[in-house]
């Protein structure tokens, strides 16, 4: 009870963090901001009344700007942090347009199903206060067939996701005549999620959508909303291929906020091992909750949510505080459970929630005093969204990022300026990735025949159409291309990967009841599901029994083991085509071939190597785009062969860790490879390749960055406290080979050879 009697406020609590054994490497204060209101927009009086009834008597400046633009039929992208009232930016013009013309329609696209439900509730809150019947409905995989017909004909606002638009709506557009003939607004929320492969697909889905709209004579205005990224307008324009007005100034009121980065203490300096970040996170969160500070904890995986929940509850018990003050809150919870947790948070019945980053996507849990973020969430944009979860209009708030021992976390913990300084990250898409593009040209031709001189978005598809007609998928007649195949092209296409070949994971633990538990895309298969690999799903471990490469099936059995597997890939890279070169940097098309050779068994928690096995699998290949940097021979000769190859491994590892920070992608989205002697350039070369057939622009991004990458790599290794290389800087292999010296030497060479030019 003691803890509860001497409750500390947030400021006092933050001071106690100084007593923690680790280091607070950064502490920034974001100043408070007053609200700035704009003139009430010219909207239908019924809507004005409805809003006033809901207590909305004034609108922030950024809202009124967005609304005015949308009403003037200008495409607009609104960039605002969480809880700044972005939904009104589109709900107001949409409802207004329906009130003005009852046949008017709007299409809302959210990246996930869960979000659609939440959004529906928001718009209904307004429409319920209006006398005119305005029908809003979701159309997704869960919509029952008997309701679908009604939605198609009568839904004023149809809420859906890109996958359903792609497979369920566009190929059946004749059933949606009412929608397409009267489509006034298309709303795309969570714009920043449309990057990489997903964004490249989305851009093509929008090309198709626009073709169908123009067939029915409509020309909708796009309203897009995005979290903070550095190129929202560019991304929005890339996606809809039209001019977009950008609104960035958030004018919602904000109270002062402190952002801290905490690095748990080093336990073994040579090996670079730090104290558990999970334990540190749980400790901080439990202390805060015990002090009555409302807290949200973010972590990357569902498994971690459960672990953190257990640890925090144990800590609370130790502090003699009710352990039920904290609750889990992650994807996979039913909407009803979530509503209850939200209510309990608002009423103060619970003080803390532990969540995965699924939540950062605009779900309303109200405002909390403190966010504790376990591990860097992968991109600056998501980090700021999570930080934004703490924050109230009055009274200050704080966010603490607890660094894990992952290389990128350590980089940020030691170089916080990369995090706080201007956001260098860009969301990239490559709608013209040939693999993705061709699939959507097919879908679009299925939807409506292409005329010979017709464009597809801003592209000219003629060459692809010509190819497809020779390939006997299309038939050319009367200067039009007709779909001429007994297939449904959207069917086996996933918007979330570039190739459509996925392995189906089948659990055969109970032999008579095989059960499909998941999918793995083909490029990841050699690493993740080679025979005898340990595959994790839903917190359970499975072992791969058989991999059927012809039938694209992977059979697994549930096992209980205390290790995971890590495969070694023998990778070869061949440059096929040079797009551009600058100094020693180059960009071009490459052919990657890889074959897994051995796998290591690595013990959970301790990461010890406890055994290995051979993998027998055929070679796989991938055409993609890569960026490379050559080392001039005259410089590397002085190093000697051995130090050169060790240094290359070290740099590769550093790039692997750091490049995602600049490219705004996941670790798995790029592949870093090095060769002591590239056969084409006859020089040591390091490559950063898009890990997606055809590429989505990450290699192009790396090429644009060039020296920045080398500088960042140098800073990362220089500031690492280890002496000879450790898993955090030069990687596990590098650590055993004293790679720090050679790596730094090579980086110096890379820097100076550029300077000499």
């Amino acid at each position, binding site marked *: 009870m003691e803890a509860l009697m001497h409750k500390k406020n947030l400021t006092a609590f933050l001071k106690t963090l100084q007593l923690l054994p680790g280091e607070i490497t950064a502490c920034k204060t974001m100043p408070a901001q007053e609200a700035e209101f704009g003139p009430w927009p010219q909207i239908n009086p019924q809507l004005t009344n409805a809003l006033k009834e809901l207590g909305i008597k004034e609108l922030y400046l950024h809202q009124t700007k967005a609304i005015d633009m949308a009403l003037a039929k200008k495409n607009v992208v609104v960039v605002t942090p969480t809880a700044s009232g972005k939904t009104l930016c589109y709900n107001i013009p949409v409802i207004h347009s329906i009130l003005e013309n009852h046949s008017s329609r709007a299409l809302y696209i959210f990246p996930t199903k869960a979000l659609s439900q939440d959004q529906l509730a928001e718009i209904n809150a307004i429409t319920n206060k209006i006398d005119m019947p305005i029908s809003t409905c979701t159309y997704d995989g869960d919509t029952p067939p008997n309701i679908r017909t009604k939605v198609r004909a009568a839904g004023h606002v149809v809420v859906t996701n890109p996958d359903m638009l792609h497979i369920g709506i566009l*190929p*059946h*557009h*004749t059933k949606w*005549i009412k929608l397409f003939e009267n489509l006034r607004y298309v709303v795309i929320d969570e714009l920043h999620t449309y990057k990489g492969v997903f964004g490249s697909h989305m851009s093509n889905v929008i090309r198709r959508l626009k073709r169908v709209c123009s067939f029915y004579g409509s020309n909708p205005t796009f309203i897009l909303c995005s979290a903070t990224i550095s190129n929202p307008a560019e991304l929005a324009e890339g996606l809809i291929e039209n001019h977009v007005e950008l609104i960035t100034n958030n004018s919602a009121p904000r109270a002062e906020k402190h952002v801290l980065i905490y690095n748990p203490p080093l336990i073994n300096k040579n090996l670079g091992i730090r104290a558990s970040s999970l334990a540190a996170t749980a400790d901080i969160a439990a202390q805060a909750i015990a002090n009555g500070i409302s807290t949200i904890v973010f972590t990357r995986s569902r498994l971690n949510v459960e672990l953190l929940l257990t640890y925090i509850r144990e800590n609370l018990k130790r502090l003699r505080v009710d352990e039920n003050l904290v609750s889990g809150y992650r994807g996979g919870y039913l909407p009803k459970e979530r509503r209850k947790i939200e209510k309990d948070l608002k009423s103060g019945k619970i003080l803390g929630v532990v969540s995965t980053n699924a939540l950062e996507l605009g779900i309303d849990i109200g405002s909390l005093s403190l966010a504790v973020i376990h591990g860097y969430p992968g991109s600056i944009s998501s980090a700021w969204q999570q930080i934004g979860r703490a924050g109230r209009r009055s009274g200050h708030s704080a966010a603490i990022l607890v660094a894990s021992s992952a290389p990128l976390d350590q980089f940020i913990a030691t170089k916080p300026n990369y995090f706080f300084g201007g956001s260098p990250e860009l969301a990239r898409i490559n709608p013209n990735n*040939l*693999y993705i593009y*061709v699939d959507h040209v097919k879908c679009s*031709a*299925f*939807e*409506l*025949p292409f005329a010979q001189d017709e464009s597809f978005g801003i592209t000219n598809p003629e*060459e*692809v159409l010509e*190819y497809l*007609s*020779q*390939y*006997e998928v299309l*038939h*050319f*007649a*009367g200067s*039009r291309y*007709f*779909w*001429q*195949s*007994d*297939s*449904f*092209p959207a*069917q086996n296409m996933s918007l979330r990967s570039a190739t459509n070949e996925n392995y189906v994971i089948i659990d055969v633990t109970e032999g008579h009841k095989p059960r499909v538990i998941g999918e793995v895309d083909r490029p990841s298969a050699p690493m993740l599901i080679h025979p005898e690999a340990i595959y994790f799903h839903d917190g359970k471990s499975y072992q791969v029994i058989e991999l059927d490469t012809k039938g694209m099936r992977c059979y697994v059995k549930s096992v209980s083991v205390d290790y995971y597997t890590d495969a070694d890939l023998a990778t070869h890279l061949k440059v*096929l*085509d*040079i797009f551009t070169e600058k100094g020693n940097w180059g960009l071009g098309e490459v052919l990657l071939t890889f074959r897994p050779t051995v796998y290591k068994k690595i013990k959970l928690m301790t990461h010890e190597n406890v055994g290995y096995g051979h993998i027998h699998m055929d070679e796989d290949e991938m*055409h993609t785009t890569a960026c490379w940097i050559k080392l001039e021979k005259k410089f590397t000769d002085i190093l000697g062969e051995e130090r050169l190859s060790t240094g290359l491994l070290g740099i590769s590892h550093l790039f692997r860790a750091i490049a995602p920070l600049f490219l705004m992608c996941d670790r798995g989205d790029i592949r870093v490879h090095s060769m002591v002697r590239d056969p084409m350039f006859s020089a040591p070369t390091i490559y950063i390749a898009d890990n997606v*057939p*055809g590429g989505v622009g990450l290699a192009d991004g790396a090429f644009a960055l060039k020296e920045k990458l080398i500088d960042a790599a140098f800073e990362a290794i220089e500031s690492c406290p280890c002496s000879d290389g450790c898993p955090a800087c030069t990687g596990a292999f590098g650590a055993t080979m004293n790679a720090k010296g050679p790596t730094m030497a090579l980086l110096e060479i890379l820097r100076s050879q550029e300077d000499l030019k």
Partner: protein
Amino acid sequence: MKGDKHSRLEQILGELKPENKKKEICEVRGLPPGQFLDEDVYLCEIRHEIPREVDVNEHKQCIKTLSSWGAGEPLVFFDLETTGLAGGTGTYAFLAGVGFYEKNDFVIRQLFLCSPRAERAWLSRLLDIIPPKPAFVTYNGKNFDLPLINTRFLLSRMKPIEESGHLDLLHLVRRLWKRRIGSCALSNVERHILYIDRKTEDVPGCIIPELYKMFLKTGDAAALSGVFYHNEMDILSLCMLFYKVALTLMGNSADPFEIDRAGDAWCDRDLNRANRLWRKAATLEPPAKNAIWKLAMENKKMNNYYEALSLLMKLYNMDYKKIDVAVEISKLYEHKLKDPQTALMWAESAIKDFLKYRPLVRAQQSKWTELLKRVERLRRKVG
């Protein structure tokens, strides 16, 4: 070294066959006798004299029987050949078969689309050759042919066909014969219900899209003769099937099984008619046991307990669903005839039968426990 897009496409998606690389417009040839109505729109007409067995009154009677399932006048038998089964906006029809009566003839018109570029003209001709306000008779047309053709009309920004009715025979065929013949594909129905064998020139439905694609490339319609035949046969089968279904629903059959299923088909529309058919099925030799069961249940509902009892006894002696029948008899004795003693005897006999087939106890756990409870209760009643 920089490859052009075409060779990159070939690299990614597969190489083209060399013969496909040239493109030329081919003259259409080899069509069956008929005439061009427009450029690329071709009509064939076949007239069959109406066989004398079909008399006008019977014909009217058949339409009347099937009217609650959508039949009406003018009857128009309708079937499409399409570029695929995928549905959606990318599948179109290239051959429409339309069958109807005209004076003493049964007329089959086949409207053929020589190139998708002429679809609009083809659709507007289709409206011309179908008698106005048709009552369609199709096989799976409610799910496939009609939605597909209406989608085509919408895509050409035209008004869809105005129909006065639509009888989809697939649904009735399933009800009447699914249990007996399994697959209700039209070919299977022809073989086992109509006893028709098609000539060897017929082509299986699944290769039709491929044949049409070939024709578009070569212009040689001779390869499509099997498709025209297939479509004509589909229309003729539809017509025969129409009468077969109607007559079966009228109870015009010697097969008690068929009559029983006909009763089932009626039971949610006309219960008296259903009862009549079941009674007929129950009295024929060998009687349809299902029909007797349903009659017994109907009688029980109408409070004709003794009639129900005698039907159930008859079933019991025929070894039909012994356990269920014994339980029903037990229920009748207990609740309606107020004779717990006899009810107990029947319930116990059901238990004995259950135990004879031990695996049943596990498979029908709930039935078994319910039965145990029944016996227990009856024992208490009897004392």
